[in-house]
């Protein structure tokens, strides 16, 4: 197998930081190559060099054995490199076809865009991978998974020889992932070299043949995935053994939150459950099954159309998150950047936002007290680096998440609602967040954890509600908890049959 793509001793120096040192590995034609590492390991820098955004300080990129100059994204594209970003760089209001030809549409007479040719060629490229996508539809009307496929079709149009994918599946459902995996395998069959970056090890093990593990800007090792264990890969990524974690339950018999018949105008219908003191309740289900919407109802961020909530036996009615906070409920939202942090403000300010009344009993903020509480809470959640006045945007995702959790601790929240608590967070910080959730439960907090990652749910939850079509389809205790059991309840029956018809194993 010839090396389609080769990184030869790539180093990248930024002022004050050595982002990459002497990175070398190669990817063959038709190979799907995983690129693994914690946040800050240098994966993104390497991809930026490949796509022409950064220039290496030393070393070179070789394509089909020849060194190539990648001074800007246009040159990289001309060299056959297509980049598929984690946060898709598309224009939602334009059509699928327009997006596929963004920046270089087919022209007629050198002046006008040839729309007909544009749509025809877009349709041809899409037909090969997903004929159900209409090239004339506005891109914004597509699901995230379909948009990924549009990006891949665009790479096909550009006759890409190398496709680099940065966390393509962070918001896909299992069945969407399977579809994407097929498309990627198709690319590889056509001789494309695929570089696949993901935090989800099971996916990497599922679709990649080899993987390169990076840490602190250097390659730890390039491994044949058939011959190593996930555990070995994780310890290469973090540079130490992560202790094997056992689930521990701290649930008591005392009911803290009782929900009956809760429904929203659109996505949630007739949800009832009890949450105990010290309990971690998992909520599993496909994206779109109403999990996020349920959490928003519980937090008061959206209004319920019917149903009741009781906390410690007292009925509450929520019309805003302010009411939820007063009742002791706090939401750690899924999209941290959009709903969690105020990026320009410091860690302390972000933490104090939900409990300003506590810090300003007479209308003026007691900054000394705020600093003391911030120091205490941030020590509690193990913020790193421990700089309380630094704008939160300069922290990693994991540490931003810790600050948001600290916000609720400072506000005296007793019921924490976590929506995808470790999305986009690296392995080391993930373990810390798990610990934190457990410790909080041990102290008597109650938590609800919504997650698409089944191992996460199983690791954390004392009990799991599986949601389907906006309601609770099943309740699973620890004894009956398994990925298979969750999947069996989460997937609508029609999809299982469709899966069988295609000869695939349902819910695998």
């Amino acid at each position, binding site marked *: 197998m010839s090396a389609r793509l080769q990184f030869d001793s790539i180093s990248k120096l930024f002022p004050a930081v050595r982002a990459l040192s002497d990175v070398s590995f190669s990817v063959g034609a038709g190979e799907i190559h995983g690129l693994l590492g914690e946040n800050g390991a240098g994966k993104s820098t390497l991809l930026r060099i490949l796509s022409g955004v950064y220039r290496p300080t030393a070393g070179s990129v070789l394509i089909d054995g020849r060194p190539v100059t990648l001074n800007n994204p246009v040159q990289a594209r001309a060299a056959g490199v297509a980049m598929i970003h984690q946060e898709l760089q598309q224009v939602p209001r334009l059509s699928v076809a327009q997006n596929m030809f963004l920046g270089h549409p087919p022209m007629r007479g050198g002046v006008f865009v040839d729309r007909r040719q544009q749509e025809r060629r877009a349709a041809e490229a899409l037909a090969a991978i997903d004929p159900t996508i209409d090239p004339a539809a506005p891109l914004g009307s597509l699901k995230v998974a379909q948009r990924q496929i549009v990006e891949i079709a665009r790479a096909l149009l550009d006759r890409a020889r190398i496709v680099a994918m940065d966390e393509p599946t962070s918001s896909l459902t299992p069945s969407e992932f399977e579809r994407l995996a097929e498309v990627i395998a198709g690319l590889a069959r056509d001789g494309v070299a695929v570089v696949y970056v993901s935090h989800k090890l099971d996916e990497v093990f599922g679709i990649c043949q080899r993987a390169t593990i990076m840490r602190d800007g250097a390659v730890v090792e390039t491994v044949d995935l058939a011959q190593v264990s996930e555990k070995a890969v994780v310890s290469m990524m973090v540079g130490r053994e992560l202790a094997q974690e056992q689930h521990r339950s701290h649930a008591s018999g005392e009911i803290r939150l009782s929900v009956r018949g809760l429904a929203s105008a659109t996505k949630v219908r007739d949800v009832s459950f009890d949450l105990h003191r010290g309990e971690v309740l998992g909520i599993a289900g496909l994206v779109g099954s109403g999990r996020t919407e349920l959490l928003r109802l519980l*937090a008061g*961020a959206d209004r319920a159309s019917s149903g009741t909530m009781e906390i410690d036996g007292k009925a509450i009615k929520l019309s*805003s*998150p*302010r009411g*939820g*906070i007063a009742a002791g409920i706090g*939401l750690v*939202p899924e999209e941290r950047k*959009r*709903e*969690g*942090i*105020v*990026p*320009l*403000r410091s860690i302390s*300010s972000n933490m*104090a*936002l*939900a409990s*300003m*009344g506590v*810090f*300003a009993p007479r*209308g*003026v*903020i007691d*900054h*000394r007290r705020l*600093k*003391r509480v911030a*120091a*205490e809470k941030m*020590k509690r959640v193990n913020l790193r680096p421990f700089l309380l*006045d630094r704008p939160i945007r300069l922290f990693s995702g994991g540490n931003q998440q810790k600050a948001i959790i600290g*916000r609720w601790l400072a*506000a005296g929240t007793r019921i924490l609602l976590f929506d995808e608590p470790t999305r986009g967070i690296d392995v080391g910080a993930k373990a810390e967040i798990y610990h934190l959730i457990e410790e909080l439960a041990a102290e008597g907090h109650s938590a609800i954890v919504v997650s698409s990652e089944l191992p996460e749910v199983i690791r954390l939850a004392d009990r799991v509600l599986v949601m389907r079509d906006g309601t609770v389809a099943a309740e699973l205790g620890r004894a009956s908890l398994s990925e298979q059991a969750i999947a069996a309840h989460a997937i609508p029956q029609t999809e299982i049959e469709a899966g069988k018809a295609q000869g695939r194993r349902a819910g695998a």
Partner: protein
Amino acid sequence: MTDITQHTAARPSADFLHRFSVRDAGTLIGLVVILAVFGALVPGFFAERNLINILPQSSINACLALGMTLVIISGGIDLSVGPTAALSAVISASMLVAGVPFPLAIAAGFAIGLACGLLNGVLVAYVGLQPFIVTLGTLSTYRALALIYTGGNPVLGLPAGFRAIFNGSLFGLPLAVIIVAVVALIAWIILKKTPFGEYLLAVGGNEEAAYIAGVPIARTKIAAYMISGLLAALAAQILIGRLGAAEPILGNLWELDAIAAAAIGGASLMGGKGSVVGTILGAVILGSMRNGLTLMNVQSFYQLLATGLIILAAMLIDRVTRGRG
């Protein structure tokens, strides 16, 4: 725990320096440079009398710009400050001429300012219209109301007693300057030391996150517009006190100078960022530049040019140094 308390207790002086941000220091350097240039070019620029002149000339703009800064921090903009001032001015003035006691007439002017701000705020926060469009609409509306109310004629002959209030001086400083200084101090306290200040920064910095964190979004925004309206009314009282008359067309293009002062001072029109100290410095920069150019007998066309260039230069410096501090 013990090391934490020591940690925070050990640095009160560093903490004080920390409050004077890098960005404000930049604005201050800009002001020093401009003062130095005019000091070298204009004989008598540094004369005590002239320096004392710059401040009252800047005070009206500074007053508006403080309100504008709070609105801009909340992620909005208030284009209606000039007409708000005009409406407040003609109503106070006509009451004064009719013999209504000063406090009542001034209070009515403030009430008009608050009401104008309330309407802006409600349309932005509850109806959900874009601040630029809302205040563009009320800019015309409030101006029209002022013109209709007066039939387009100035209200003349304000009582001397009223004029004396705003033309007096205290400790050798014009009273208007002292009033605006007090307002600036209050605005600084609001922004740095009250929950409302934190809410403004959070709402402008990330409204969705602020909502989830329990910040009262609508109340915060409305309060910002009401303060802006109130300060426009205060500027109007200072001006009609100085002039002895209220014209329905007063305050034309005030909004642009106010936005300029806030932007030079580091407020981001994207919201979530802005500084009271910076805005005051920005207003003094604009004021001293006009004063210097006037003393140099530069035509007003070139004064306009200089204002434009100062704003662009400030934004370019901002862009180049962005991401630090």
